[in-house]
């Protein structure tokens, strides 16, 4: 009796949830994020959320470049690091305030995107991935090189100014949270608008079939560079926010692990969609910093168990294995799975036809 009632309640709930239009879902999602600090979270959880906001911007930029335009980049941390280092250097050598350093970092990021983008367009596919992977390795090696230590401070990194040094620590976290959330919202809206404008359609046409796009009279080179520049702008925005937030810019901003974070996150959420990158980031950081660090040990303690030593390193294995499983078995991502339910068949098929080959091979069979 109770079970059948619950089942009926669930089915009516599911029917209603999947009737909500996606835009409303997005607004609801941001509303929840807006209200989160009022729940009295400790400053550690605020820290996680702020960090998730920053990485969400970074993942969005990766998703625009790879998921929408199909230019595979395995070294996106390059732009992140350029953003971080340029803010920190501007602060250290010229003492500029952060409302100047962040825009300048974004502009420098755009410049870097152009400089890297032009030559990268001569190569394609795996070659492009190799070249993009090589750049951050080169830059981080140069930064760690000891003769340049007076400028870059080697492994220690350069100090940057915090956002709100005049507030007490708790208010500081809340202010930082709202600032990063605002920046994330603005970036998401801009990227959404770009992706759904004429330019965005051109990006998708390049992804689908570059030769056909060229045959239609599209200046493919111009649009590819545009994609590179937009993407690097947002990545370096994320980098410069992180430098101010952590008060430091160091060579780990160029690390391969960081380049890998947007890949994990977008595959978790669904590649080629704006919401996917954001949802994936939150899932990743909640799993990474809350479930695996806090919830799991508490659960295990109930059974008189403890986490094995070296678990800190095992987390990356878990997430990377998730990426592997997603790519090999379930390449459409979590958020996309939900939106397939949300949107009717036409739109779902439309989504199927977009997107890189990575998931195209797994086109859903048409429902009859």
């Amino acid at each position, binding site marked *: 009796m109770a079970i059948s009632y619950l089942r009926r309640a669930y089915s009516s709930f599911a029917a209603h949830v999947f009737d909500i239009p996606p835009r409303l879902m997005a607004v609801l999602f941001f509303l929840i994020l807006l209200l989160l600090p009022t729940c009295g979270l400790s400053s550690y959880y605020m820290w996680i959320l702020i960090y998730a906001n920053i990485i969400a911007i970074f993942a969005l930029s990766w998703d625009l470049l790879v998921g929408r335009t199909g230019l*595979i980049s395995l070294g996106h941390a390059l732009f992140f690091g350029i953003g971080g280092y340029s803010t920190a250097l501007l602060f250290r050598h010229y003492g500029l305030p952060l409302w100047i350093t962040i825009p300048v970092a974004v502009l420098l990021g755009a410049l870097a995107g152009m400089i890297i983008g032009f*030559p990268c367009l*001569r190569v394609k596919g795996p070659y492009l*991935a190799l070249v993009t992977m090589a750049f951050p*390795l080169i830059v981080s*090696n140069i930064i760690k090189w*000891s003769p340049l230590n007076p400028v870059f401070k080697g492994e220690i990194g350069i100090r940057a100014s915090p956002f709100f040094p005049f507030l007490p620590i708790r208010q500081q976290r809340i202010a930082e949270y709202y600032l990063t959330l605002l920046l994330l919202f603005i970036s998401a809206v801009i990227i959404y608008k770009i992706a759904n404008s004429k330019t965005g359609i051109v990006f998708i046409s390049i992804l689908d079939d570059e030769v056909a796009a060229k045959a239609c009279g599209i200046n493919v080179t111009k649009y590819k560079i545009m994609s590179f520049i937009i993407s690097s702008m947002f990545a370096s925005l994320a980098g410069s926010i992180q430098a101010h937030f952590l008060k430091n810019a160091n060579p780990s901003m160029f690390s391969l692990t960081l380049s890998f974070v947007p890949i994990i996150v977008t595959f978790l959420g669904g590649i080629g969609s704006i919401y996917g990158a954001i949802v994936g980031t939150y899932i990743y950081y909640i799993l990474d910093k809350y479930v695996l660090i806090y919830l799991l040990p508490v659960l295990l303690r109930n059974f008189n168990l403890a986490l094995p030593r070296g678990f800190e390193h095992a987390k990356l294995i878990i997430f990377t294995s998730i990426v592997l499983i997603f790519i090999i078995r379930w390449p459409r991502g979590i958020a996309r799975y939900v939106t397939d339910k949300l949107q009717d068949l036409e739109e779902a098929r439309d989504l199927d036809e977009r997107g890189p080959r990575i998931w195209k091979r797994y086109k859903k069979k048409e429902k009859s």
Partner: protein
Amino acid sequence: MIEEIIIFGGIASGVYALLALGFTLIYGISGIVNLAHGSFYMLGAYLFSFITALSLLEPETMSNSILALVLAVILVAIIGSAIFRLAIHPIIGDEVAVMVVTVSLAIIFQQLILIIFGVSFLPVMWPKGSILTTSFRIFGVTVDYSRVLAFVASMILFIALSIFIKWTKIGKAMRAVSQDREAAMLMGINTERLYMLTMAISAMLAATAGILITTSTTRHAGVYMWLHPLALSFAIVILGGLGSIKGSLIGAFIIGYAEQTVAITVPEGGAIIGVVPLTVMVLVLLLRPKGLFGKRIEMEE
């Protein structure tokens, strides 16, 4: 100084050629860009060190070391073919997905090593007292016998493998598959098993190179040691052209000499050595996207 560059550059280049050969072989035959190649190198060195440490209970002899080398190489080959079967085979044909998967595998291996062995260095060396730990002087340069062994062994392996690919039946099948997969399948070649074999050979070469290089240069294994050989192998292979064996030999010599020149002439050059292959690779890709001897290449002009 010039003698040093010539001798050490030559020795390094020989082993690099072996490292790059594995990378180019698996790409040329199956189109897999294996970014876990550096991990095989690392696994080789770690397993060698681990197995020699196990056999330390007995008197430390040369035969024990050689046994450890063979065992480590075979284990890495098994790991390589298992990876191919489980992770790469389902998505073969999609180069970009393969790259993401192999990078993920590389990161997984790095973390596994971090968990099992920690961040501290592991000694990777030939047994004390054997001739390989001594050195001799030639043209005023002190050269270790271990480096000579590394160079000679890798050249022998390189030539043996070239002959294997050129003359044996399996080698012919490999070349057939690289030319036209479907036609080769119609001729009764089991491509899947061939890919697995190629992956095993490639992993073996990487592991051998790993053991030979670490025993003759740094003599210890660290967690992040996989990045430099990976960068090296794709730089060499792109320089010589993906899928070309002759190209990988010549590319190895160019990169090896460039690296030694920088290491010896530039101040603090040892720290910046990792930049050299990557910079050469980027320059080559930008100036001459086909590489020097590239065959199987699709490029935009």
